């Protein structure tokens, strides 16, 4: 906190909040402009799905913080196991458990 001081660090928090809020606000305004069940709305939806998938894969492939201490192979093995279980069983919590357990096992065994 020495770099910014008391007011500087809270100003940084405020700026981070504003930087997110503008998108939410713009989204609320834009949502009332786009007609439901239109090709444009379908496109917005696929882009939202692709962005969310991208964010998640970034967390897994290029993680920050404590997850970065695990290996890429551990994380991908967990992901593949989870997705595989989901395709076979169609049961979310069960598949989640498979993925997590595989990640845990991979961390400790390999």
């Amino acid at each position, binding site marked *: 906190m020495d770099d910014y001081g008391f007011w500087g660090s809270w100003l940084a928090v405020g700026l981070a909040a504003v930087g*997110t809020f503008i998108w939410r606000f713009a989204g609320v305004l834009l949502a009332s402009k786009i007609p439901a069940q239109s090709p444009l709305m379908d496109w917005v939806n696929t882009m939202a799905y692709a962005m969310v998938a991208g964010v998640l894969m970034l967390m897994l492939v290029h993680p920050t913080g404590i997850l970065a201490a695990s290996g890429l192979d551990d994380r991908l093995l967990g992901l593949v196991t989870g997705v595989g279980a989901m395709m076979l069983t169609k049961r979310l919590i069960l598949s989640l458990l498979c993925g997590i357990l595989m990640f845990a096992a991979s961390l400790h065994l390999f």
Partner: protein
Amino acid sequence: MSISETVALTAPQMRRIAAIDALRAPAYALAATMAGFATIAREAGFDVWMAVTTSALVWGMPGQVAFASLYSAGASLFIIFFAVTLANMRMLLMVVSAADMMHLHMHKLPLWRRVILMQCLAITSWAHLAVAETTYPRHLLLPYFQGFSLTLYASGMLGTVFGYFLPDMVPPDLLQIIIFITPIYIFLLIATARQKANRLAVAFGGILCPVFYPVAGEWSILLAGVMGGTLAIGYARFIAKWHLEERR
């Protein structure tokens, strides 16, 4: 429950069901993710109030992480603002998509209430809305979202506080496993989206983003989203249709 049985539910009942849905698993996973943020924030030099305020007001993991890492690097306030803004740009599309899913226009809420509602939107509640859409009638999706997202919000705040003090108590190996839960959980949810175009978008976006990242950095999310989403809808609309016509 089938749709016909759920039509008779009142809004408060729906909120309660949604809150219980959230407490089944996603609330813990999200609390763990926010705990992960809090450990990064603490290393970056945040006090616990700054960490909680950031979780409450930003309420979007990639932006929060970008903020904490730049803060620890001593980046200028302008750079912080720019990076967080860029990292949370997907909120725009998620808000539009969520408003569409819960048929927000039917409810005729004033602007300030719609804004407060969307302040609570997170990836988890957005992904769960897509699941609820297949189970509950449209007029109940707004109360569902309210119950679900408020429960998540509360557990996110608790998770941030716990996470701030947690590293003292939990071994790092266990913490890694806990933090691993949320990305996998959401990925499984969206990878089984009802519409084929959306599942394709998950595949394209998920592959493109880490590929772009070494070159494009924070821009990779935007790039992968636009390209992946456009490819997916293009494939579903034109190429798949063309196949259909071929076969006739």
